[in-house]
């Protein structure tokens, strides 16, 4: 079996943060907060978070906060729950959640819940089960779940469940592993996993594994390393992880590494990026690959970070 090139991946992530001429940085400026979450969580999983100056990161994050309480993707950008969750997660990594005006952030998120229990991403009203997960995960990390109508939120999520046991982005939407992760995660965090048909969903998820060992997100699609997270974390949350061939998946993820320059790509021989590097390594952590910190499948943060939030308050 191949090796995980931990040093190379650490170097790759640190370089991405600092690279001057990188085209990817230029066009992803508006979602830098997401990038920070992917990069920094990966560094934490591989035990290299101290290579980053946390004060610099924290002060930059706080400048991304808007007067509404929500966070934009970078300084000067409009607030959106996508970046609000990343902000909360990165502050959690650095154990700096206490600098937040929790009430203010929570109110922003809660204001985005619609009458049917669904959540918009921001004031412009796009509805998607991704935002249900984001809202619930964010508020749980801030101990503010009581700000929303949890029962209605759960009801809406269940209305997006399909007859195959999976979930789409809206009622009737095709079952998709990314949306499934969001719905299952939200149900896990709010204590409603018993409402799922775990056997039916577990089977659908196990069918995502293709011959080469990788996972796809829907029937008859190509495998992609990011599904190592979406599918795997879902399977763990419903206690069905043993239904896939773990060694084969490990090998697939390792084959997606750029062993020369570091980083992981969506499938072997494609260009790497921080997003797939994170999901590949997070997936390996879920598969208990040696030397990696364990990661919580629902909160997508290292277990010690989650424990710090929930066990010591």
């Amino acid at each position, binding site marked *: 079996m191949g090796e995980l090139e931990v040093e190379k991946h650490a170097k790759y992530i640190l370089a991405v943060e600092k690279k*001057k001429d990188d*085209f*990817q*940085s*230029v066009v*992803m*400026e*508006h*979602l*830098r907060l997401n990038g920070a979450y992917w990069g920094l969580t990966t560094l934490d999983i591989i035990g290299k978070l101290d290579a980053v100056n946390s004060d610099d990161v924290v*002060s*930059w994050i706080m*400048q991304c906060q808007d007067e509404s309480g929500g966070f934009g993707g970078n*300084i*000067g*950008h*409009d607030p959106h729950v996508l970046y609000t969750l990343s902000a909360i997660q990165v502050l959690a990594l650095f154990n700096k959640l206490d600098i937040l005006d929790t009430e203010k952030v929570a109110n922003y998120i809660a204001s985005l819940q619609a009458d049917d229990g669904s959540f918009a991403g921001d004031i*412009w009203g*796009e509805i998607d089960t*991704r935002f249900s997960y984001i809202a619930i995960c964010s508020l749980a990390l801030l101990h503010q779940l009581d700000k929303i109508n949890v029962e209605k939120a759960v009801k809406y999520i269940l209305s997006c469940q*399909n*007859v*195959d046991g999976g979930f*789409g*982005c*809206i009622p*009737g*939407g*095709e*079952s*998709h*592993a*990314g949306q499934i992760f969001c719905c299952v995660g939200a149900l896990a965090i709010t204590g409603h996993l018993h409402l799922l048909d775990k056997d039916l969903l577990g*089977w659908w998820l*196990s069918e995502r*594994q293709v*011959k080469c060992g990788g996972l*796809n997100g*829907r*029937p*008859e*699609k*190509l495998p*992609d390393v*990011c*599904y190592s997270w*979406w599918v795997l974390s879902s399977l763990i949350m419903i206690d069905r992880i*043993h*239904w*896939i*061939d773990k060694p*084969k998946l490990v090998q697939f993820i390792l084959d997606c590494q*750029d062993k020369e320059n570091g980083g992981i*790509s*969506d499938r072997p021989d*494609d*260009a*790497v*990026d921080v*997003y797939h590097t994170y999901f590949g390594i997070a997936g390996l952590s879920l598969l208990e690959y040696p030397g990696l910190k364990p990661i919580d499948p629902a909160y997508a943060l290292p277990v010690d970070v989650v424990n710090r939030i929930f066990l010591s308050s």
Partner: protein
Amino acid sequence: MLMGLKVLESENENKQIENLRSPTCSYIITRKKRGFGITMDSEDEVNGKRVPFSNRPEWADIKPVPQDDGPNPVVMIDYKHEFVETMDYFRAVYLAGERTPRSLDLTREAISLNPGNYTVWQFRRLILEHLNVDLHDELQFMDQIATKNPKNYQIWHHRRWIAEKIGVGAAQKELEFTRTTFSQDAKNYHAWSHRQWVLLNLGGWEDELSYCDELLNDDICNNSAWNQRFFVVTKSPLLGGLDVVRDSEVMFSIKAILAKPGNESPWRYLRGLYQNNAKSLVDDPRVASVCIEGLLGGSQYVHALNLILDALVHQFRPNNDLKGAIEAVYSSLDLPDLATDSELAVRVCCILEKVDPIRASYWQWRKTTIPSQAL
């Protein structure tokens, strides 16, 4: 593919740029193969040869605002000049709240350089509302940029916003537009969400089932089209509901299965038609027959066997033809002898473990759930 990008192709291969499959991956630029270079094209493909803002007299009154990366920027970014300039001017009008025709044009240029920048889109919407622009013109703009950015969340959301404002009159155009998108990628998740929203909110169900026929004719493995089919038969106000169409839909699925028994989608669709009641499904002689054909016909019988297994554990009593077919497959696979034919469900699990080894643990678990009557 972002505007203004050219990919250097290797001499001997065709372009192998592939859009990422996950919607979340849409944040990332289109994949390139490792070793290919990319270069930013300095030509503005939408407006022709570009004149810097600093040279445009109509912008002479504006002081551009540079990106504020904070006192100790975590990320030092070296931007390309036209991108920098455009965004500096954008920031100026954004901070000033200027909602004029020239700032509308500016957002168009900013979007052309980076259609993922959601803040630009949001400001554009504020300007469109303020100027009361004819949104049909806006849809035309959307058509132009959409072809190169089929998986961009902001574009789809903006489109939704426009369609919602135009109302029912937008239905046909939006159905046509998603149809065009599907001609490039028939599984585009964003496009399917949009199409479903259009049908539910603006109507246009008349030809939807036959459109599903068309797509499945092109690619019987298109799971999105199968999902849409289920959406139509369950939600269309014109078809009478699932009970009315079930029979013909079973026939349709069986035809698809016969064409390609290893295709996951029609099996799931069949189960959906019967709300996952496997016993009722296999009680239908047409379904039992297609299972038998699959078993006798070749190697793509995993889905057939799974369905039979589900039915067996729910007291389904197979006829001799089906039993015979299962036993024939069992003996062909060099599996250990099992004594009596009352262990049919166990045989099925053993077969599945052998022919679908990647899910061996799942099939082993299935064996443990066989109730004693089915043994």
